[in-house]
């Protein structure tokens, strides 16, 4: 009887030991496979050519204000006096009065450069990523304003909450050593 029990225990032990080695080899195999195949760290980024400026960037990001903000490729900008990224469609006057501005946060600074050119600079601390200005600029201007995920803010969620709800599927992972998809070709190179 006791002999029978001993046999049983050792048989059980044998199975467990076998399983242990199979498990170790299996995990070792996966380990080797993973580190053979993985190389790049990936981060999330918006393809500005796909973005339709829906405004979800401001709402869906898990941090607030959103990690997705408006950036300006100055080399593409027309420096228009009447920028429809900056101004309401029908501004009362072409000045910096809040009622004339598109941006709900007053995050765009407009400064005179030389006749007839004006420069528009985004104050990123204020921008909430609502894409209102981007919409105006893309539709009526040169499209030099566009949305980008800012990596000093983004916490790189395993599934980006904006990517999940972006209606034009504009957001995907890009290699971390080229973390921006800028519109300006010179800057991209």
């Amino acid at each position, binding site marked *: 009887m006791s002999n029978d029990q001993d046999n049983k225990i050792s048989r059980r032990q044998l199975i467990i030991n076998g399983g242990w080695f199979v498990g170790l080899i299996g995990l070792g195999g996966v380990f080797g496979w993973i580190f053979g195949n993985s190389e790049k760290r*990936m981060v999330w980024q918006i393809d500005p050519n796909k973005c339709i400026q829906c405004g979800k960037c401001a709402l869906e990001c898990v941090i607030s204000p959103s990690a997705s903000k408006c950036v300006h490729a100055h080399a593409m900008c027309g420096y228009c006096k009447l920028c429809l990224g900056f101004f309401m469609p029908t501004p009362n006057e072409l000045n910096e009065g809040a009622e004339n501005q598109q941006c709900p946060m007053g995050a765009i600074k407009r400064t005179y450069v030389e006749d007839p050119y004006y420069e528009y600079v985004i104050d990123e601390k204020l921008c909430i990523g609502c894409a209102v200005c981007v919409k105006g600029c893309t539709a009526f201007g040169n499209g030099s304003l566009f949305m980008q995920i800012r990596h000093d803010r983004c916490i790189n969620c395993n599934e980006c909450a904006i990517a999940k709800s972006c209606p034009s599927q504009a957001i995907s992972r890009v290699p971390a050593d080229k973390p921006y998809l800028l519109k300006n070709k010179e800057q991209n190179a």
Partner: protein
Amino acid sequence: MIRSLIAPNKAASGPADPASAACNRSNQTTLFQLLRYPDAEAATGGRASLPGSLLSAFCFLLSLPAYAVQHFPPPDFTTGHKLPVTATPPPRAEWLAYMDIGVLIAALMLATYFVLWKRNRRAIGGLSIFSLAYFGFYRHGCVCSIGAIQNVAQSIADPNIVLPVVAGAFFLLPLIFALFGGRVFCAAVCPLGAAQDIVLMKPSKAPDWLAQCLGVLPWIYLGAAVMYAAIGSAYIICRYDPFVAFFRFGGSVPMLVFGGGMLVLSMFVGRAYCRFLCPYGALLRLVSPLAKWKVTVTPDECVQCRLCEDACPFGEIRYPTPRDGGISRTEGKSRLAALILLLPVFIGMGAGLGYLASDKLAQVDPAVSLAKRVWLEDHGKVKGTTLETDAVRKHDTPKEEVYLQSLAIGKKYRYGSLALGGWIGLVIGLRLIGLSIRRRRSDYEADSAGCVACGRCYLSCPVERFRHGDAEAIKILEEYRA
């Protein structure tokens, strides 16, 4: 999102309709001029007012194909104005990612030491608070071992997806440690486990049948998560992670409610997420029975005092089997044989049901639901458009492309849901088989699969307390030895 849905924007190459664009060109340039010299236009032209002329310009511009058209050549400044540079702050430094892996290894080693050598509940609790702070609040709960299942699954299924080293390490290391010391990861390293463990106040015992039924859920969740990640539609573990919203101090209202509910539940039902949902816990359950060193209530001899009987808040302490066990051996054996024979039936039924549900499951994929919506709209079955279908039209994505992509993904779903259904059948069948296998046990011991190594039972065992030099324990022991 994960997969690119819409082909690269073609509209940038020019207006969609060359003919109408050409006949508008002269008109167009003057109106664009207006934006650059709005005052001049208002002053010299016979227009009534600035707003009025702008309004007409606006209405006209709305009708234009509006894609990245260089309307205004960038100016040559006569004053030598320098363009500001667009800042591109880099992502979190790479060495910090390796630091995370280092911290994970260190925490796992410490946890193993506390659980198996020190056998100290306090130390385990302390380490889990650190893990909650580091992996939870400092790292915002991302990436975690549970979610890393999906990265691994997707990169295996799709060779174009590279697996980030950090995700790979987080997936593997706890499993490797489990091969040595059981679920030490759950004990003190997992931030989700820690969050639930810390709030645990008054554990109530779930009835055994309920715990057994709910215990199947993690396996189903695991199967579904792997399927959705492998096809590339969604990371459902991240989407429905109950505590990540707390780690980030913000999230959608339903997820905050779900997370809050889970926390409150965990006050009374120990580690509700761990036991009844966590898919990584399911994987650990497979590995930890193989552990070289298992968690024991006490490494010394059990005196059968029964003091540990209710010590485990998660109901993972197994009692010695009664000598004259419940049902007879032959009856048990024939039931087992019947269940084993039925197993293929379970799998087949599951696979069939899964196959039937594949269209429903596929709706999670944005490309599939988009194609369906586009079709419904084009055939006048629904009124209005959505942002998604607007995007398709705005980008002039060919409809065939939308449909073809949806079809290709739908095909993957047919195989995927077939496999998922079969998997669910298998899991249920195996659970039934497991229930009818009885192992003889002579002592009280922790279930090697379910024990999360929290160390609470150590405190209840007088033999153990004696080992740690507790004077009171000697009295209790003498009582039982007498």
